[in-house]
């Protein structure tokens, strides 16, 4: 039987990143095919290529045996491929019905005016088929996220596609809603629709998937039958790689004093009852999947997000941290994962960025900038951190990612923080610069700083951490000392959701 979709040797790169390399994939009628992999494995990219959002660099896509070019979302729609994106793509100011049928509104008189009644009727039909009780005339912006996700699903279903791609469709749904979604998926299966299902949630796979394909680092690993393969085996395929750099042996367990203690922190849906301690001189790795809540914990401790309850102790003394300036005053620094947006003033020069957190130190009469002093400090850090830049006056946006990251680090060093949260410190940085950053982190810890390193790259976590804390859906699911930390154990803890029964 010719598969609905067949992908052969597909490659796609973005500037600096090879997202997909020679990937293969196929989907037959009436199957639910799960696509799995770590963060950055290439799952979303592959699906976006199929949905016409990205164009592939090389390789073939066959639809029902015929090769196709999918240059735009319209092409994909015309080819019968529908996609439910991970990030909701809805227009909040429009109604449910208007969102579902955007671009395909039924016309009334003269073909000029829109037939709103027909639109609502059509929407109502789809929603009732889904057994979902949402008023098609409701404004999407007023709905809960779960309802919005239902609207996205309804929109995808309204295309009567032969192929339906679902990228993390259940991220905002509760059990009852998920059950309803699965019912719809089974119905689609019966009608011969092929469903590609991307999810991190192992238990869901077991319930709904027929086959599972695993991608890793943009490459194809294997395709297995879901019923016959254990969760552990799948995880093994997702992470299995030989560690090219050996974790440094015999790192002395830090016995430094406690620099930061967090107790029972609650801050929004992704920080639930989080407690951990951090010692001077140690690097504490925070592992978990995207959306596990690690960034949210850091932001809450740093005062960037409001805290509902919980206590923070800095150097043993209770600290009230409500804004980032409170945090900085207590010696806590946070290097955010999106350094371009939150870490740097990209239009300004190296010097200005470095002194930015501590500008008060560079003012005479509390008013004028002491340029010479600024220049000296900037030079100091450029040397110390080996920042490669033609001069301190170079605009930051012209530097490479690695050097930009060093500038952010310099900024926080200038501020003389004792506790540093590094959120994805080597994201988007090439291999050479990465090891420099690693060396830097290590030397900072050796100096006595206390470091929390949030990372989605398991090798990095394993290499750098003295201890590893793993989070899943807002809770800490486990803590591992360096000797006991392995990728499998971490992955297991990272996917250990509350509702998971032993698989």
């Amino acid at each position, binding site marked *: 039987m010719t598969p609905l979709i067949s992908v052969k040797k597909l490659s796609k790169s973005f500037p600096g990143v090879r997202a997909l390399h020679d990937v293969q994939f196929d989907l037959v009628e009436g199957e639910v095919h799960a696509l799995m992999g770590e963060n950055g494995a290439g799952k979303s990219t592959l699906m976006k290529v199929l949905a016409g959002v990205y164009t592939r660099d090389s390789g073939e896509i066959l639809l029902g045996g015929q090769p196709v070019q999918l240059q735009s979302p319209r092409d994909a*729609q015309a080819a019968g491929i529908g996609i439910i994106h991970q990030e909701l793509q809805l227009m909040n100011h429009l109604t449910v019905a208007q969102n579902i049928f955007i671009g395909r509104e039924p016309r009334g008189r003269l073909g000029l005016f*829109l037939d709103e009644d027909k639109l609502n009727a059509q929407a109502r039909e789809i929603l009732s088929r889904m057994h979902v009780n949402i008023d098609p005339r409701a404004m999407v912006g007023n709905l809960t996220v779960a309802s919005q996700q239902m609207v996205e699903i309804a929109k995808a279903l309204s295309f009567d596609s032969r192929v339906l791609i679902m990228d993390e469709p259940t991220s905002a749904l509760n059990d*009852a809603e998920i059950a309803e979604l699965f019912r719809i998926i089974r119905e689609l299966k019966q009608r011969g629709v092929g469903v590609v299902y991307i999810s991190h949630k192992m238990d869901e796979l077991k319930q709904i998937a027929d086959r599972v394909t695993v991608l890793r680092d943009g490459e194809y690993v294997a395709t297995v039958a879901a019923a016959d393969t254990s969760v552990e085996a799948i995880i093994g395929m997702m992470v299995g790689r030989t560690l090219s750099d050996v974790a440094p042996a015999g790192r002395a367990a830090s016995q430094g004093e406690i620099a930061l203690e967090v107790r029972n922190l609650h801050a929004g849906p992704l920080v639930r009852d989080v407690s951990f301690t951090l010692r001077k001189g140690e690097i504490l790795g925070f592992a978990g999947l995207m959306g596990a809540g690690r960034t949210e914990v850091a932001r809450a401790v740093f005062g960037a997000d409001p805290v509902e309850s919980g206590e923070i102790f800095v150097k043993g003394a209770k600290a009230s941290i409500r804004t980032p300036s409170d945090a900085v005053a207590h010696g806590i620094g946070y290097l955010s994962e999106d350094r371009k947006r939150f870490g740097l003033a990209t239009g300004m020069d190296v010097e200005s960025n470095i002194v930015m957190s501590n500008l008060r130190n560079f003012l005479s009469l509390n008013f004028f900038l002491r340029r010479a002093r600024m220049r000296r400090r900037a030079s100091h850090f450029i040397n110390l951190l080996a920042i490669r830049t033609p001069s301190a006056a170079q605009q930051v946006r012209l530097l490479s990612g690695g050097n930009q990251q060093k500038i952010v680090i310099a900024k926080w060093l200038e501020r003389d923080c004792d506790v540093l949260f590094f959120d994805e410190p080597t994201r988007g940085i090439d291999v050479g610069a990465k090891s420099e950053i690693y060396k830097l982190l290590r030397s900072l810890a050796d100096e006595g700083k206390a470091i929390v390193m949030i990372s989605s790259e398991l090798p990095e976590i394993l290499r750098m951490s003295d201890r590893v804390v793993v989070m899943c859906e807002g809770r800490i699911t486990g803590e591992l000392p360096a000797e006991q930390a392995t990728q499998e154990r971490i992955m297991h803890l990272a996917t250990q959701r509350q509702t998971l029964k032993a698989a």
Partner: protein
Amino acid sequence: MQPDSSALTGQRRLTGLRARIFSPTALQKLLAFASLILLLVFFSFASPAFMQMDNILGILQATAVNGVLAIASTFVIITGGIDLSVGTLMTFTAVICGVFLTYWHLPMWLGVLAAIGTGAICGTISGTLTAKMKIPPFIATLGMMLLLKGLSLVVSADKPIYLTDTENFYMISQDSLIGYLVPSLPIPNAVLILFFLAIMSSVTLNRTALGRYTFALGSNEEAVRLSGVNVDRWKIAIYGLGGAICGIAGLLIASRLNSAQPALGQGYELEAIAAVVIGGTSLSGGSGTILGTIIGAFIMSVLTNGLRIMSVAQEWQIVVTGLIIILAVYADILRRRKS
């Protein structure tokens, strides 16, 4: 097992009529309308000269041009963009009309078409700059504003073009069709045109694909693109429509002054935007109504006229207008925060 339905709707359940009256957009419109009524009542008490037929007609006539420009701006602002060129585009279309009618002695209907056509073309250019060349609307239309201002002066050789040769031109704005039918209500045609245009624009916004996409683009342009809609084409069409409406404004002002005044126009775009904003349309796009814009335009002209009738010093008139704009936008921000 059936999922709990109310959990799925996840929305405050307001039923029927109460829901429609107390929905946020309805409240905003009500607020603006109530403000207008309050102003009218207030000024009527403040001065006996206010509520006279002559003065009311004066207010209506004074609102016409700004109202039309504000309608043009409403479309663009709902898409999340802005059009700073509406004022000078209006002037340019009036100048072109003058060229057609006075320089080239063509019949009046050609002049009318020329004005609207010029507006549509220039609007399309603005749209193309924004959609295809990705120039931010603020910059693109700022450039167009200056371009059109300069062109108006060049084409007219710095002099007003008088339209007195075309006998019936003044009738577009100044004559009164209603007055023929109901002699006691000599409402100038300009006002009739304003209301007619408002109704058509409202229908377009709410009942046509162009209107639907206007809101959609303002709400989430990326989502629209991913839904397979040709975003560029529709954006250009929306700016083009705005331009054509500016052409109508050009006809109105040229007909009112019986001349095309080339130096006029810069500054009118701010008044138009003020009317749109006071009427409840958000500058960030995605929502807005024509009715709100019309009310906003009338609030401004009633305010100006009322203060004039009360002989408040001109300097203070300007201060008050500025204050009202700030308060109106702030009230809108509060309302949004609540919902």
